[in-house]
Structures are given as structure tokens and as C-alpha cells.
């Protein structure tokens, strides 16, 4: 009896302990997680210690001093390059290790390893896209240059010095929640991180949808509805700028470049919420007489914060700005001589080629009149709790075949599939660009740094204390015939291949233009006189035009007027659409509520601020109107996806072609709708839908609440670690681009001059730990549109009341 009792008690005790030590699906190991000695409690942090700290690290060469300011920004003072990047790796990992590793795992198609087969399709997508292949190529490119090789190795060693110090109790909290451990850092992870950026910013492709449209409407109507240059535009390189080079001969398009789209390819569409603003104002227009530069890159707002502020000082460099956790150096920032910033170009650097295989063995494919060998690359995807899965990806000289035909066979005897040609598959060395920019002094240094840059192509804005300002849509651009890659391409014809590159020196660039300022907001890079093809469509010009309107009218520009411009919530698109839409509304038949809504919109000053009701109505109305005009003409069929003409073309249609056939709803057989009917009906439906959702027109319709800007943790659904319903104005196509999920991920204003001064903020904080006071401490300042002064120290002995703590790293 006693034995039974004892065994029973033992069994219960052991089972409970084991159960609490184990992860159950998505439920974490509760015993371990709640233990104050080992669990989440250990991640609770206090502010930086005033007493400071000394840490000895294997691998560091000489002593490094890190001053932390009141925002937990590290100011790193090192005696040589190696130590500077070693320290950057070490202290970035201290604040952001989980994020750095998770993002590189995602890029490498390794999420299934962490969370199981839920992520399998995502991982397979990344493998098929050739992310690993591209990262390997980049690493090759980086390693060929001794500078960037040293930077990469030092940075990686610093991260590993931190990982080596960890024990389970001190793992970042996400490891504890998901139940895994950090692995050693390798240099290729840096390449993965940069590939991830390229995927975010330069992998959107409408080629398939455009091809379906061309089949549906024919080439003439397609060209009419999807023109190569907008109706209204204010390009980045001011229109009329002369090109000071002799262009290469453009390749000739093949006689017939038609392809069919035999398969449905579920490709990520381009995301209009991701864009950015930057500008620089010349000394003749500023209060101090020295240029001012501003930049706010728009990305999917996430936590831990996308950016990490840092100052890096060595005997040959003193740079401040934001870095990407997982990549060495400063990406956007300034030094004592220059400042620079970036926005996305949106170049067409991803194309699809239809492959003709010789037979079902797929050992050879037809190209340029010859059978050429197919390379095979086996991707092994590890899956948590299941056996690993291997996926064989076929590579042609174009690139990997992303989609295999058997998933949806078209013809029995001709196996088809599409290979993707993508800039991310090229050997490149972006690290070198930032290495040089971080140390640049002159305009020529800036031009040289840019020549190393490949992808994702960016509009690099520049200003310096020598009173130069410049901007360049810059990256490695393939040499193409006009519109090459607007549609799917036939991969058997050599004429469809990329024909080399636009020489770096002939990338669009402008220095000190007569108007006294330069700017970019993802609109067309140039006017149509630029001899090369970069893309047929860019972001809508609304933000760009608004910025240029404001900058043209300004004199005696200050940091504060630039800050206000970054927070401008004027809805430029509405100011173009509403004057042509409102007169078309047929007022008879409107309900009382609809009349009230109409009055509200008519009285609107186009300020898309937090409380705006008209702004809410407009935003919903315009998207419903575009849907109502185009949805019947471009029916949504699963296997033949199509897209709508852009809003610039829609505006032109409403303004100049009110009798166009597109206003008729082809679904109604017996009647022909007019523009007035479609405008009125869409307005009524918008108001009714809003009333259903928010009640009678009033405060509940306020824009910020309706929009619901959220800054979300990288793990989906982790609301407790996110900032939701942030009360901020602005939105897509507005200078202050704070949308539902994407928006200004960093705002910076730099006043160049004999003593540079700079200001900045991002929505979040320096620490990636939700248990740190520095996790979300900058959010409110960002929301209000204020900036912090960025402390730029010239020496380690400088005194400043905002320095809170000193960390010494030594051997």
C-alpha cells in the first residue's frame, strides 16, 4: 500500500514538473517561463546604471568606451576599425539579438525550424526565390574587398562575443516564449539581412497581372490605361535637367515579345504603403546659410524597432545615424562634413522568364538556339517536431525556376515554368557603400561610395558643409529595352535577357539644381528624356508634389520648418480628386446622413489629421470609387489575376475623359452608367458603410481611430508587446505617411555647417526587450511629431548631462 502511494506521489510530482518544463504547441513551458530565476522575470530591466560597467571580451583588440545617453543610444569610441565594428556587433546584440536572428532566419527560409510546419510555405517561397543563393553571392562580393571583409568579420565576432555570454536565463524573452536558443552568428547572416531589404523594397512585380491584362484588352488599350509616364508628375531629377553623358546604345526589343501567362503565379504585389521621403535644401534657402537634409524612410512599422541609433568613432571616422540590427555601419546618418539619406527607387529589377524544358527530366532548357544544362540546388528545410524536408530548385542562367508546372499543368507535352531574374542574385557589396559614406567628406566621396551600391536601389540624398546638395536614384540597373519586363518574358530568346548594366556614372544624378533644393518621395526618377529604362511605373507623385510645393515656397528654412514638413498631413491626392468629383455628385436622392457627409467633405481643408471626419470619408470613398470604376473591367479570377490602372490614370480619366466607356458597369447588361452615377453611388455606399461601422456621423468617424495605426511585434498576434491604435494623422500618399501598418520608421533632420547639429526619432526605442524602459520610450515623441536632439560627440571626454552610463569593453 505504502509503495503504491509513494509511486503515485512520485508519478504526479514528476509528471507535473516535466509538463511545466515543456512547450505544448504554441503554449510555452510555464514552469520555466514563470521561474523568477530563469523565466521572463529575468528579462525585466532597469534604466542604464549610473555606476557604469566593465566587461572583458575575448577577441577585442584594444579598449573601447561606450557612452550611453538618456535614450540608450550608444556612442562608441574605439581606437581602430576592427574594434568599432566588433563593439557595434556586441552592443547591438545586447539590445536586439532575437530580432537580428529572427529576421535572418526569415530571409533564409528557416522559420519552420522555430515554429513548425505552419511556416513551411513561407520558407519554401524564400528558398525558391533564391534568397540563399543570393546571400551566398553577396558574401562572395563582400569578401573580395578587404575593408568590407574586416568589417563583416569584426561585427560577427562582436555578436558572437555576446552570444557566448548568454545562458538560458539571460536569453531574450522571445526565445523563452517560442522555446529555442540562439545559434552562433555567421557573416552570411548579414548578407541575408540585406537580401531581406531587397525583397521588401525591390521584389514587387506586376508582370503576370500586366500580361493577363494585355491578353484581356490588347496592347493598345493596355498602353492607354497603363502608360509609361504619369499624367501629372514632378520627377526626382527636376524635369529639364540635361544629361552630361553619352548613353550606351539601347538594346533592341525582339520583334515579338508576347508571352502567354499559362500559370497563375501568386506573386507578392507591390505595397504602396512602403515608400519614403527625403530632401535637402541648399544654403541659399536656409536661415544659417548651410544646407539642411531630411529623411523619413517608410517601412512596415514593427517592434523591436527597425532601426538602431549609434555613433561610431575611430581615429578615421566619426559617424552618427541609424543602423539595421544585423548589418555593420550606419545606413542613414551624418558625420561632421556630410549628411545622407535614402528613399526607395522602385526600379524594375525582377523579371520572369518562361522556360522551355527539353523533356520531363528537366535536365536541359532551350535558350538562344541551344539546349543548355539546368543546375539543381537542393534546399533542406528543417521543421520543428517533424523530419526535414528537401526541395529541389532548378536554376537556369536567368535564375531559379520559382514555380514548377506540375502544380498546374498547361499542356501535357511541353512542361513550362518561370525562372526569375532578380538583382538580388548578383554578387554585390553594399557594405562598402556605407563604409565609404560613413567616412565621406566631399561630393566626390559620395559619388564614389554610390558606385559600389547594387540593391535595393535607393534615392541617395546628400548635403555637406561645403554647401553642396545632390540626389541620385542609384543602384545597379539592368540595361533593358523600354518596357522590358513590364510583361512576362519568353526565356528562350536571348534578346529578352538583361543586356548588361547602365554604367554607374550614368545613373540619374543632380547636383545643386537652380531651384535650390532636391527631394524624392518614390515618384518617377526622371522625366522621359533620360535615355534608359528604369521602370514604367513608380509611386504616385502626391507626396513628391506636396514636398516640392512646400519647399519652393520656403525661405530661411530651419530645422523646425523641416520637422513640420515631415509631419505635414495635407492630402494632396484629395486636393486633386475632390474638385473634379464633388461637382459630379447627384444630390437628389441623398439621405440626410449622406447630405451631411457631403457637406463635411465640401468644407474640408484637406488636412488628414487625427480628428478629421472628412479625411475618413475621402479615404474610403476613393478606394471604393476606384474599385467601382475598374472591378467590372478587370474581373478578379483566381487563375488570371489582374490589377487596376493607377490612381493617376484614374484622375486623368475623370478629369479629361468623363464619357469614357470605363464608367459603365459592364455587369449590368441593359443600361449604361455615367460618371455621375458611379461617383454618387460610391459616395452613398461609403457613407452608409461608415455609418454601419461607427454609428451616426460624428466623433467616432475620426481618422486616427478609423485608421488604427499599429506598431506590431514581429511575432504575429503578440499584441501585448505591440503599440496599437496610435493616435496619429496622415496616411498613405501623404507626407506624414503613418498608415495602418506602415509609416515613417525614422525621421531625421540634419543642419550641416561648421558644427553639425541633428535631430531624429523613431517609433519605438533602442532596446528590443519588451521588459526594458527603452522599448517604446520614443513612441510618444514620434506620435506628436517632435524630434530629439542627436548627441554628436567629438571626443570621449566631452561632458554632457544627457550621458547616463559608461560601458568599457576590454580584453
Amino acid at each position, binding site marked *: 500500500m*505504502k*509503495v503504491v*502511494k*509513494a509511486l*503515485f*506521489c*512520485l508519478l*504526479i*510530482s*514528476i509528471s*507535473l*514538473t516535466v509538463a*511545466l*518544463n515543456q512547450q505544448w504547441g504554441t503554449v510555452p513551458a*510555464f*514552469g*520555466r517561463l*514563470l*521561474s*523568477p*530565476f*530563469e*523565466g*521572463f*522575470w*529575468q*528579462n*525585466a*530591466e*532597469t534604466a542604464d546604471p549610473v555606476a557604469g560597467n566593465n566587461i572583458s571580451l575575448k577577441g577585442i583588440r584594444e579598449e573601447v568606451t561606450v557612452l550611453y545617453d538618456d535614450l540608450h543610444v550608444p556612442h562608441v569610441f574605439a581606437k581602430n576599425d576592427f574594434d568599432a565594428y566588433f563593439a557595434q556587433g556586441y552592443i547591438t546584440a545586447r539590445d536586439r539579438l532575437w530580432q537580428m536572428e529572427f529576421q535572418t532566419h526569415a530571409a533564409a527560409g528557416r522559420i519552420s525550424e522555430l515554429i513548425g510546419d505552419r511556416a513551411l510555405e513561407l520558407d519554401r517561397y524564400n528558398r525558391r526565390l533564391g534568397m540563399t543563393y543570393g546571400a551566398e553571392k553577396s558574401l562572395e562580393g563582400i569578401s573580395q574587398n578587404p575593408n568590407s571583409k574586416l568589417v563583416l568579420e569584426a561585427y560577427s565576432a562582436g555578436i558572437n562575443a555576446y552570444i557566448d555570454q548568454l545562458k*538560458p536565463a539571460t536569453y531574450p*524573452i522571445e526565445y523563452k516564449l517560442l522555446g529555442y536558443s540562439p545559434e552562433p552568428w555567421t557573416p552570411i547572416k548579414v548578407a541575408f539581412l540585406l537580401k531581406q531589404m531587397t525583397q521588401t523594397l525591390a521584389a514587387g512585380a506586376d508582370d503576370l497581372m500586366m500580361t493577363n491584362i494585355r491578353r484581356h484588352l490588347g496592347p493598345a488599350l493596355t498602353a492607354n490605361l497603363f502608360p509609361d509616364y504619369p499624367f501629372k508628375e514632378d520627377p526626382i531629377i527636376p524635369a529639364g535637367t540635361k544629361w552630361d553623358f553619352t548613353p550606351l546604345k539601347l538594346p533592341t526589343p525582339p520583334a515579338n515579345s508576347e508571352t502567354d501567362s499559362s500559370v497563375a503565379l501568386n506573386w507578392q504585389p507591390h505595397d504602396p504603403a512602403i515608400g519614403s521621403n527625403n530632401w535637402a535644401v541648399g544654403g541659399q534657402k536656409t536661415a544659417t546659410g548651410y544646407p539642411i537634409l531630411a529623411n523619413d524612410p517608410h517601412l512596415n512599422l514593427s517592434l523591436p524597432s527597425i532601426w538602431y541609433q549609434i555613433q561610431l568613432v575611430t581615429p578615421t571616422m566619426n559617424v552618427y545615424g541609424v543602423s539595421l540590427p544585423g548589418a555593420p555601419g550606419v545606413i542613414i546618418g551624418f558625420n561632421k562634413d556630410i549628411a545622407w539619406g535614402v528613399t526607395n527607387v522602385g526600379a524594375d529589377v525582377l523579371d520572369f522568364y518562361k522556360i522551355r524544358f527539353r523533356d520531363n527530366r528537366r535536365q536541359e532548357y532551350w535558350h538562344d538556339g541551344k539546349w543548355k544544362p539546368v543546375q539543381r540546388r537542393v534546399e533542406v528545410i528543417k521543421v520543428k517536431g517533424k523530419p526535414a524536408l528537401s526541395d529541389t530548385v532548378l536554376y537556369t542562367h536567368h535564375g531559379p525556376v520559382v514555380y514548377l508546372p506540375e502544380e498546374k499543368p498547361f499542356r501535357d507535352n511541353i512542361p513550362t515554368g518561370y525562372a526569375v531574374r532578380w538583382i538580388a542574385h548578383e554578387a554585390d557589396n553594399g557594405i562598402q557603400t556605407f563604409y565609404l559614406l560613413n567616412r565621406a567628406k566631399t561630393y566626390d566621396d559620395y559619388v564614389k561610395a554610390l558606385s559600389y551600391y547594387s540593391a535595393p536601389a535607393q534615392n541617395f540624398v546628400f548635403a555637406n558643409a561645403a554647401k553642396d546638395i545632390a540626389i541620385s536614384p542609384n543602384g545597379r540597373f539592368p540595361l533593358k529595352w523600354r518596357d522590358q519586363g513590364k510583361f512576362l518574358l519568353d526565356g528562350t530568346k536571348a534578346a529578352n535577357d538583361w543586356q548588361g548594366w547602365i554604367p554607374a556614372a550614368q545613373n540619374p544624378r543632380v547636383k545643386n539644381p537652380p531651384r535650390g533644393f532636391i527631394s524624392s518621395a518614390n515618384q518617377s526618377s526622371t522625366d522621359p528624356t533620360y535615355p534608359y529604362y528604369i521602370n514604367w511605373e513608380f509611386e504616385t507623385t502626391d507626396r513628391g508634389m506636396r514636398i516640392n510645393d512646400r519647399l519652393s515656397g520656403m525661405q530661411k528654412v530651419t530645422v523646425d520648418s523641416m520637422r513640420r514638413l515631415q509631419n505635414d498631413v495635407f492630402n494632396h491626392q484629395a486636393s486633386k480628386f475632390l474638385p473634379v468629383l464633388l461637382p459630379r455628385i447627384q444630390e437628389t436622392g441623398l439621405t440626410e446622413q449622406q447630405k451631411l457627409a457631403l457637406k463635411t467633405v465640401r468644407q474640408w481643408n484637406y488636412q488628414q489629421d487625427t480628428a478629421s471626419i472628412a479625411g475618413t470619408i475621402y479615404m474610403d470613398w476613393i478606394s471604393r470609387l476606384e474599385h467601382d470604376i475598374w472591378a467590372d473591367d478587370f474581373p478578379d479570377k483566381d487563375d488570371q489575376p489582374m490589377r487596376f490602372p493607377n490612381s493617376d490614370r484614374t484622375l486623368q480619366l475623370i478629369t479629361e475623359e468623363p464619357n469614357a466607356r470605363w464608367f459603365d458597369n459592364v455587369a449590368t447588361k441593359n443600361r449604361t452608367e455615367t460618371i455621375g452615377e458611379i461617383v454618387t453611388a460610391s459616395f452613398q455606399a461609403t457613407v452608409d458603410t461608415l455609418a454601419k461601422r461607427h454609428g451616426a456621423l460624428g466623433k467616432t468617424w475620426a481618422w486616427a481611430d478609423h485608421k488604427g495605426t499599429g506598431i506590431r511585434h514581429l511575432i504575429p498576434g*503578440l*499584441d*501585448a*508587446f505591440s503599440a496599437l491604435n496610435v493616435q496619429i494623422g496622415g496616411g498613405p500618399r501623404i507626407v506624414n505617411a503613418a498608415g495602418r501598418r506602415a509609416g515613417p520608421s525614422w525621421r531625421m533632420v540634419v543642419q550641416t555647417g561648421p558644427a553639425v547639429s541633428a535631430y531624429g526619432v523613431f517609433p519605438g526605442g533602442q532596446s528590443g526587450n*519588451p*521588459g*526594458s*524602459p527603452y*522599448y517604446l520610450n520614443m513612441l510618444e515623441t514620434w506620435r506628436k511629431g517632435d524630434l530629439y536632439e542627436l548627441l554628436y560627440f567629438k571626443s570621449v571626454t566631452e561632458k554632457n548631462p544627457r550621458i547616463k552610463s559608461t560601458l568599457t569593453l576590454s580584453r
Partner: protein
Amino acid sequence: MLPFLVIAVLSAVAQFFLPWWSIALVAFGVCFWRSRTGWRAFGNGFLGIAVVWFVYALIIHLQTGGILTGRMAELLFKTKTPVLLLLITPLIGGLVGGLAGLAGRQVRAVFAGKP
């Protein structure tokens, strides 16, 4: 009283070096060594662990302004009140300690029964 103190002190020391489940070993061992009844063994094991977990958790909570306690309470229990976590934490640790203590006492009883 003595076993409770021994469990508290030994488990606290053990947890600085060993995984969290060392609390079960400590409670088991101490109650194997010394405990009068099953109820007392459970009580000593429960309190010995729960008090240490509660005090340590409370110290961390107060020192760090409860930032993480609040976020974790929201994540795990959908509540903004961190107090719940300060109660559940010692409860879980206590249960593990208590049951291990009870098992220690019962195993001892087997050996005590046939001297």
C-alpha cells in the same frame, strides 16, 4: 519550521546554478530527510518554494517598475493587472515544490516501513 527554511535556502542557492526544476529535487530531498506527515511535507515544499519565488518576483517587479510584468500579464492572461502574475508565479512553483515534498515523504515512508 526547519524543513521549510532549509527548502527555501537550498532551492534559492540551487536555482542560481541549476535549471528551475531543481526546486523539485530540493523539496523531495529535504522532505525525504525530514518530515512528519504528508500534509506537512506538502506544506513545507509548497511554502519553501512559493515564498522564495514570490519574494524574488516581487523584488524584480518593484525594481523594474513592473514594465514587463504588465506586458506578460496581458500576454498570458489578457489582463492589465500584474498582481495576478505575482500570485500565479509562486502558485506554480509552490505546486511543484509541494508535490515533490509529498513524494519525498511517501518514498521515505516505504523505507521506514521495513527497517
